[in-house]
């Protein structure tokens, strides 16, 4: 397996507040990696630093090249898609416009339309509501739209920021099933940060545990499930 994302010793934060301290982790081609952590551990900041939304120091290598300091739209055309926390669908646009927007960096019109049609097959709710404003949909539907939209750019790596946030347990469960399916069928690697450790570890091959901006533990999903500290802090048993 080749490593597609290699984050080494990054520091990042907001103004004078440093959040990440010498953070390092990797994601291999086609795998699902989860970063677990409590509120304020730095999960969102990690993803924001990787996709260039906030400045960082250290090194971020994506598909073999150094990308630290690149803008998010440049990273997107390199094959990195990021679904931000709170979904980030453009609520004023219709469902279909959101999907078209997701293909902004692509030029193959016919294929774009075919991709949109196939997303309507995958998530029929989106097809039913294609001309509705995205903001009028339920949280779960918007999260599906956000993920479909991110995948419209045909990325090699998908970053997901707490996809379960604000969703009912059943919806969350279905959502993680979908993410796993997409990963298996398209081979898109997924880096997901989550508080819901149970579900996230269920679809991941490896994981990291983040605490106050540092990785305190890492291993295969199986290892982390059996780790006493992880069980107590994140699995609740």
């Amino acid at each position, binding site marked *: 397996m080749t490593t597609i994302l290699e984050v080494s010793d990054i520091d990042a934060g907001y103004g004078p507040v440093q959040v990440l301290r010498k953070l390092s982790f990797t994601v291999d081609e086609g795998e699902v990696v989860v970063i677990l952590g409590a509120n304020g551990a730095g999960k969102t900041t990690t993803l924001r630093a990787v*996709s260039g*939304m906030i400045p960082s120091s250290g090194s971020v290598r994506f598909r073999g090249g150094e990308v630290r300091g690149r*803008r*998010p*739209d440049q990273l*997107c*055309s390199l094959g990195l*898609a*990021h*679904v*931000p926390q709170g979904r*980030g*669908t*453009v*609520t*004023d*646009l219709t469902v279909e*416009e959101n999907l*078209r*927007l*997701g293909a*902004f*960096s692509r030029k193959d019109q016919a294929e774009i339309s075919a991709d949109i049609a196939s997303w309507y097959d995958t998530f029929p709710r989106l097809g039913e509501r294609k001309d509705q*404003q995205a*903001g*009028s*949909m*339920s*949280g779960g539907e918007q999260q599906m739209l956000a993920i479909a*939209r*991110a995948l*419209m*750019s045909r990325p090699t790596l998908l970053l997901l920021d707490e996809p379960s946030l604000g969703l009912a347990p059943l919806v969350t469960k279905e959502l993680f099933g979908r993410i796993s399916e997409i990963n298996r069928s398209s081979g898109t690697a997924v880096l997901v940060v989550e508080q819901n450790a149970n579900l996230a570890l269920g679809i991941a091959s490896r994981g990291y545990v983040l605490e106050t901006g540092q990785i305190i533990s890492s291993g295969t999903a199986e290892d982390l499930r059996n780790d006493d500290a992880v069980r107590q802090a994140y699995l609740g048993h």
Partner: protein
Amino acid sequence: MSEFLQFTFIGLGKGAVYATLALALVIIYRTTGLLNFAQGEMAMFCTYFVWFGHDRGLPLPAAVLVGMFGGFLMGALIERLLVRPVSKKAMGNPLPIVIITIGLFLGLNGLAPIVFGEQAKTFPVPFGDGSVSILGASIFTRTLGTLAVLAVSVAVLWAIFQKTKFGLGLRAVASNAESSALVGVPVGRMLLIGWGMSAAFGALAGTLSVEGGLDNTLMALPLIYAFAAATLGGFDSELGAVVGGLLVGVITELLARYGTIGAYSVGQDLKLLPAFLLILLVLVFRPSGLFGKGEVKRV
């Protein structure tokens, strides 16, 4: 009856001017999500570019193109040099940008006479100064010409915003810049083009509104009517800006002629009052305007 019609036509003529400026306001709102208080003064400044081209011997349509090109550059420069550095520091707070547009309003107003001279410039009347008689009242050819330009502009802008990928990118950035960047939209370039487009459109609005001479007061009053027009029509609708502009023009003109407050007639002096009143009423009863989509939020 024919007097009523006559004042309606005069109102339409003024309304068409408000509508063009309102369209410039709509463009910048659609592309950046901002209210630009300097829109009128930017239009005034670009109209000087048009005058400059015409003064050097260009026919008016060519001079307008020069003005629009100059306007695009001016808008793009303002975005790049003033708006972008400040909005980076402002962290999503729109207030500093609004203050910048107010600064631009004052700055451009002061700069115009310094650059171009204090004397009002003689400026050609677009579409001639003839008139056509309809049902016993006369309507200026210039009003008809302006309405035609408006119709074409609305159609072109609508097509750009609704039917092109570029327009989709512009709208997306105005609505949610951060999220648009994450799906590959070059946000900086879009904002730059948005400022450029609206400033370029200002050159057209200015040219259509010059009456008599061109000086730096050209847009001071029309801007207020244009805000009323865009509020009435909805800030995110090109068609709304035009319908709003025409309505505001006709309503204020008819009120000026027939309206009374107690024993006093409204007249030209108090014409501004209904415009303000209109802004207030729309904001209270239908904040998204007649054609605006309004915000959809689900909790």
